[in-house]
């Protein structure tokens, strides 16, 4: 990984330590086992969906439908994982959640890869469909989630939920895969330059297709932790779509595709949750959290682009798009 790839990880870690230290110094309650465990659990839905969003961003796409899919998963869970069900039924119910994710993923990927719709437009359509479907199934919060399932999801050793350890392992493995294996390199190549990748004989269509399927499946898995948090089949749950993109981008993903880090995404997801967790400790209204998060995203983006800006300034390069166009002037 080059310098640019390390900046986001370093910045996120620094901010987490800084905010954490400040909070710990000001409020004893912050470092309590209870608060830390809740903080980590609260990170889970965003962490999972942001990992998925990172795969979509890596191939140069967006998935705006993830939030609606998480809600849909939650609503599905309120039917398939009801209190008093046997473990067999619950297992099947869990598969149903992942199935919803898989189906949505295949649907999105088909729109984007086979019908060639821009991913942002295609997933806005899916978002509407899923939101409507969720409201049809539950027109108001209704249908409690099985508490045994919630307990399993929240299983912790000390203050650390096992699931949190799980996503960290997933993130690290993901980054190793992305930066230390051939398929990972291929995914980045497709995201960076689809034409060249196709010329090199890569199955670019399959890579894009799978990325969107993975994104949706991750969103439906995030639905489990949303269910553990909300505990009832609610059709109106907050917007994780923009947050997931924010986390991925703060973690180093490029909106143009081909660049990103799963670990960075996780750190950013934790950081975003942390800000929301810390401000109430000081009786600050949550609006401040929103403003802070927005300002930090802008600041971080400028910082991430700094090496490139400096390089461009030095070499006096011109608009890259113009150059590409002329490089491609056909002849012969």
């Amino acid at each position: 990984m080059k310098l640019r790839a390390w900046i986001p990880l370093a910045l996120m870690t620094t901010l987490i330590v800084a905010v954490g230290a400040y909070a710990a110094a000001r409020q004893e309650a912050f470092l309590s086992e209870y608060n830390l465990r809740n903080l980590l659990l609260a990170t889970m839905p965003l962490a999972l969906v942001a990992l998925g969003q990172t795969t979509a961003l890596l191939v140069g796409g967006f998935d705006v439908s993830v939030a609606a899919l998480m809600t849909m998963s939650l609503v599905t869970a309120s039917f398939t994982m009801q209190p008093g069900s046997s473990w067999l039924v619950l297992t099947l119910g869990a598969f149903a959640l992942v199935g919803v994710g898989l189906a949505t993923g295949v649907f999105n990927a088909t729109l984007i890869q086979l019908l060639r719709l821009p991913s942002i437009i295609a997933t806005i359509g899916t978002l509407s469909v899923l939101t409507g479907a969720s409201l049809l199934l539950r027109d108001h919060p209704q249908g409690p989630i099985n508490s045994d399932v919630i307990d399993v999801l929240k299983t912790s050793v000390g203050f650390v939920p096992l699931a949190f350890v799980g996503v960290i392992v997933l993130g690290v493995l993901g980054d190793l895969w992305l930066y230390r294996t051939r398929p990972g390199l291929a995914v980045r190549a497709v995201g960076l330059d689809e034409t060249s990748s196709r010329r090199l004989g890569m199955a670019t269509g399959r890579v894009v297709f799978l990325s969107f399927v993975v994104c949706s499946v991750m969103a439906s898995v995030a639905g489990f932790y949303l269910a553990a948090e909300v505990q009832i089949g609610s059709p109106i749950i907050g917007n994780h779509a923009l947050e997931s993109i924010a986390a991925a981008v703060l973690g180093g993903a490029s909106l143009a595709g081909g660049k990103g880090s799963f670990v960075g995404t996780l750190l950013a997801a934790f950081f975003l949750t942390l800000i929301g967790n810390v401000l109430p400790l000081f009786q600050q209204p949550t609006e401040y959290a929103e403003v802070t998060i927005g300002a930090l995203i802008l600041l971080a983006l400028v910082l991430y682009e700094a090496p490139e800006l400096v390089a461009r300034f030095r070499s006096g390069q011109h608009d890259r798009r113009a150059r590409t166009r002329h490089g491609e002037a056909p002849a012969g």
Partner: protein
Amino acid sequence: MSIPGPTSPLALSLRGVSKAFGPVQALRDVSFDCREGETHALVGENGSGKSTLLAIASGFVAPDAGTVEIGRRRLRRGSPAEARRLRLGIAYQTYSHVLDLSVAENLYLAVPRNVQPRFGRIEEWAAARLGEFKLDVPVTALTGSLSLAQRQLLEVVKALLARPGVLLLDEPTTALGPQDVEWLHSLVLEQSSAGVAIVYVSHRLPEVLGIADRITVLRDGVSQGTFEAAAMSEDALVALMLGRPLQLAFPERHHVESQAEALLAVSGLQGERFGPIDLIVRKGEILGIAGAEGNGQVQFLRALAGVERATGSVSCNGSQLDTTSPLGPLRAGVVLLSADRARESLFPVLSVRANTTIQVLRSLGRFGVLRRGRERRVVDDLAQRLRIRMASIEQPVQSLSGGNQQKVSLTRPFLRGDVNVILAEEPTQAVDVGARFDIYEALRAKTNEGIAAIVKSSDPLELSGLCDRVIVMSRGKIIEEIRGDELSERRIVEAIVGSGAPATRASAGEARTR
């Protein structure tokens, strides 16, 4: 060089291949083959279908009709991966590099899985491969940081890494200096004597005659025949490449005195892909820019409009032109007609009327309110004068033919009273024959008012008919200047295809200082 006999097995064979892109028939029933150990050159003018033929042979583009066989195995339609499995390697004219990845990573992606080293060792592996080909490029550098020549050499090495049985080289020397060309040619000879079938596409006829066993000529997507290179001359090839049935009429030349007042003076202008260039354009003159595609003509023209970054100085009417942004040239009346009309010149969904008057709305209004009647009269006048064929001036520009779209973008310099120089990039690209003449006439009529025009075109016939003077560019520099009685289509083509010859290059300095 051992000339492979006609008995050598066919390594690549295309039969009856046709391909259309929209209304343009790029290839029409073309058959082409290459034997093992043979170097078969493919020549033709810009747009004659060479790159399309290679794209079809390599599986990147699926033909509308016809078949491709690589090593006697039929290629499934449109699959570069399968072509690679059939041991076909290709060096693209516009490269296949992922610029944000390192050289080592690009090399790694270019070879089939069974040849790939362990991922952790790609840098040593890449260095070893580059060493084999005696190419000195840092393997850890981002490919985007390499010079164009290095990128071109790397592209060739990538094509060779998988040890192909068929090697396609598309204009592999456009960015190369003489030494690198020599390196490349020794590589080609080495490969062909090892039995590799090589398809060599190039504009440069001396290069082609020096290296090919057979030569196939394409013109307007139709094969003009395949010939033994030993029996061919540059003259004969040029004659085959040209030879158009249709001769165009051109507007009469305005006689420009060589003492006429200089309007645009360029000195030491230098950009990423061209320069340094010194040039003077006089009032009433139409200057043509010729050259094989990708030799800096486009960049030079766009630099004059402030769209491409460059250093050096340009002055118009005696005052210095600020070319750091498009604004300076625009204010000084230097206007660019981009070849990419839909994206850079016109608003495709807006009407002819809106597209025509968009730069001069202020002069058509009163108290900030547009006077529609006056606007309509102005547009109607111009539409008639330029013979724009349309149902009404309210028709969206995107529904017009290419030629009529170009005429709409030409209306703008006519409306502005303060235009000094028109920079036209491929003004008749994708324009039908009838409309071409209208465009030539409009350009000539406007320059007769005492302004100047610079026309970049890949059509030598057009340049010879329209322009008062033509400069020929190669590798970013002016290598020849053709004017007066010398100016002919043939002369331009000879200058372009001869640009690989050292004799021509030696005269470059002379042409520039003239």
